[in-house]
């Protein structure tokens, strides 16, 4: 079966980052078509029909999100693109923006038109500064060609597009923290409601969408929402960018049709080509560091023995007991030499570092989990520490303003659920656990 690509099918063409080459290859046709033949609300309908779901991780229906946007008279509305891609394991948006920046710009113009925004923003993480420059160049080109600014392609529609950098904060990927940051403040998530659709940027109705979501609007408009919906399985329609990393022969960014089997993705010749160095698969985190880890026997098949597919539903099959989530598409693969305790500690350290500090359960809880896991990993743990972790977990989960608390709690809970023996082994075999230097090649002495 040939894999359909809708976003990256032209990404390999030389010079595609320039407006000229992008246009020669069909670029901005969707925009021309939409401005000529579609009213804004018809675009929203088309996106609803496509079944497109937010590609940043939450998987919420994009058409529905758009239809929630409040439209009070005389108040500006904003579209903000979330290019803060910071979820460990996720580097798909970077690839798209680097390779084919005009796809995002075209998607931004289309989506802004659909939402009635006259000024839109792309908020990009500060560590992607070179991509900010790529985007700015693309915007200048689009301006010069009458694709941005006043009276776009003679349609009477006006749009300005601004790229804003972040300053290094995972939390700014959360949409209300992102808006705070875009207003020039600390990235502290806001209490909801009100949701950004009612009160967002500068208190005005705002839609925040991921890079890949906005880019997907282009093929949806070009080929129709029905065509997009015909790809994939059930409620997982269209294609998804997956960024594969960890111990793989061929890590990288792949565009897959929803419904590809996980087995084909990990071992297939067109994809990751198996585990690096001929080792065996130990575990997989299929949707970015926040989603539950799956042990090898639950990666390729669900607990019911069905083939595991790359869809929102199949990856979540079994709930948290034996499933995970598609999340952002950050697909992290562990080989047999990797230590789950060490990795869990690493991720806990990440969340403790990135907690904004607003809510006590998250600010204190992530720090505690990091300390306890650090102790376990370094052979100083106690068997009660494992239950202590589970206890801290429960006290963070659901008790915070934003989902960072959950994101920190879930991976720890899942690691203990599936790899409890490994945690216990670190306690019962303290010396051995240190000598074995789990997850590390033999340490060289550089003295």
């Amino acid at each position: 079966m040939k894999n359909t690509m809708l976003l990256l099918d032209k990404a390999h063409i030389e010079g595609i980052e320039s407006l000229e080459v992008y246009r020669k290859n069909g670029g901005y046709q969707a925009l021309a078509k939409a401005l000529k033949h579609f009213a804004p609300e018809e675009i929203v309908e088309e996106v609803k029909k496509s079944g497109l779901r937010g590609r940043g991780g939450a998987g919420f229906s994009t058409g529905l999100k758009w239809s929630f946007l409040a439209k009070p008279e005389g108040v500006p509305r904003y579209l903000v693109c979330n290019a803060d891609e910071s979820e460990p394991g996720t580097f798909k948006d970077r690839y798209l923006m680097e390779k084919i920046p005009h796809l995002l710009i075209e998607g931004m113009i289309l989506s802004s038109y659909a939402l009635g925004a006259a000024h839109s923003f792309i908020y990009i993480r500060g560590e992607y500064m070179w991509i900010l420059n790529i985007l700015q160049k693309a915007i200048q080109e689009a301006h010069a060609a009458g694709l941005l600014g006043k009276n776009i392609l003679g349609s009477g529609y006006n749009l300005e597009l601004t790229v804003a950098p972040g300053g290094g904060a995972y939390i700014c990927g959360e949409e209300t923290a992102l808006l705070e940051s875009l207003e020039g403040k600390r990235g502290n998530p806001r209490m909801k409601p009100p949701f950004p659709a009612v009160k967002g940027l500068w208190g005005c109705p705002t839609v925040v969408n991921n890079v890949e979501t906005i880019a997907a609007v282009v093929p949806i408009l070009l080929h129709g929402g029905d065509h997009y919906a015909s790809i994939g399985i059930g409620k997982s329609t269209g294609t998804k960018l997956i960024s594969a990393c960890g111990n793989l022969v061929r890590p990288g960014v792949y565009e897959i049709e929803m419904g590809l089997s996980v087995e084909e993705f990990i071992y297939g010749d067109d994809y990751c080509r198996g585990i690096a160095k001929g080792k065996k698969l130990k575990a997989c985190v299929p949707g970015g560091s926040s989603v539950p880890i799956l042990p090898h026997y639950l990666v390729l098949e669900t607990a019911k023995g069905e083939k595991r597919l790359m869809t929102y539903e199949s990856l979540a099959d079994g709930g948290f007991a034996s499933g995970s989530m598609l999340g952002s598409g950050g697909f992290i693969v562990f080989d047999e030499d990797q230590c789950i305790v060490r990795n869990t500690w690493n991720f806990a350290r990440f969340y403790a570092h990135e907690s904004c500090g607003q809510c006590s359960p998250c600010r204190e809880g992530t720090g505690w989990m990091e300390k306890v896991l650090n102790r376990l990993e370094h052979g100083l743990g106690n068997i009660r520490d494992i239950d202590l972790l589970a206890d801290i977990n429960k006290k963070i989960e659901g008790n915070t303003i934003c989902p960072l608390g959950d994101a920190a709690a879930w991976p720890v809970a899942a690691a203990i659920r599936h790899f409890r023996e490994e945690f216990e082994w670190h306690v019962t075999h303290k010396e051995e656990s240190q000598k074995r230097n789990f997850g590390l090649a033999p340490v060289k002495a550089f003295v």
Partner: protein
Amino acid sequence: MNTEKHLIFKEKIPFSESNLSKAKEIIQQYPEEKSKSALIALLHLAQEERGWLSVGTMDYIADLLHIQPIEVYEVATFYTMFHLQPVGKHVMEVCRTGPCMLVGSDQIIQYLEHKLEIKVGETTQDGLFTLKTVECLGACGYGPMLQCKGQNHEFLNEEKIDHLIDSLTKSSLT
């Protein structure tokens, strides 16, 4: 770089002329009365020029945006990319998060410490290099990696690090 230290709390440190015009361009991208939105971009600009953000630099930016100095400090201290202390000429920020660790970032950090004869968080005596570890930089499939002066160095190994340090040292001498 230390010459700026005695200026702390005393004088505002302005942008160079070219950066001032860049700053004005950035501010203009936002609606009137919303110029505070330009803050993070301006902090990047200042850090690029000065290497780090001193109180004098931040106070100047507060004036430029017509906001209180505290509004600048609270942002500069929140975001991890901003250096609030003088740093070496080349800041090496090595990713230490999970996916990079799976492919050997621990060893890369160790090797850099050995090679530069400093610990993470320190600066070499000649003021050329500062070594930092950072959380995920979005290069998970291309690790181990580090970022230096906004440029990614990916698929790192010992030879690549040797080469990088050599070329940065040489470029600093000329």
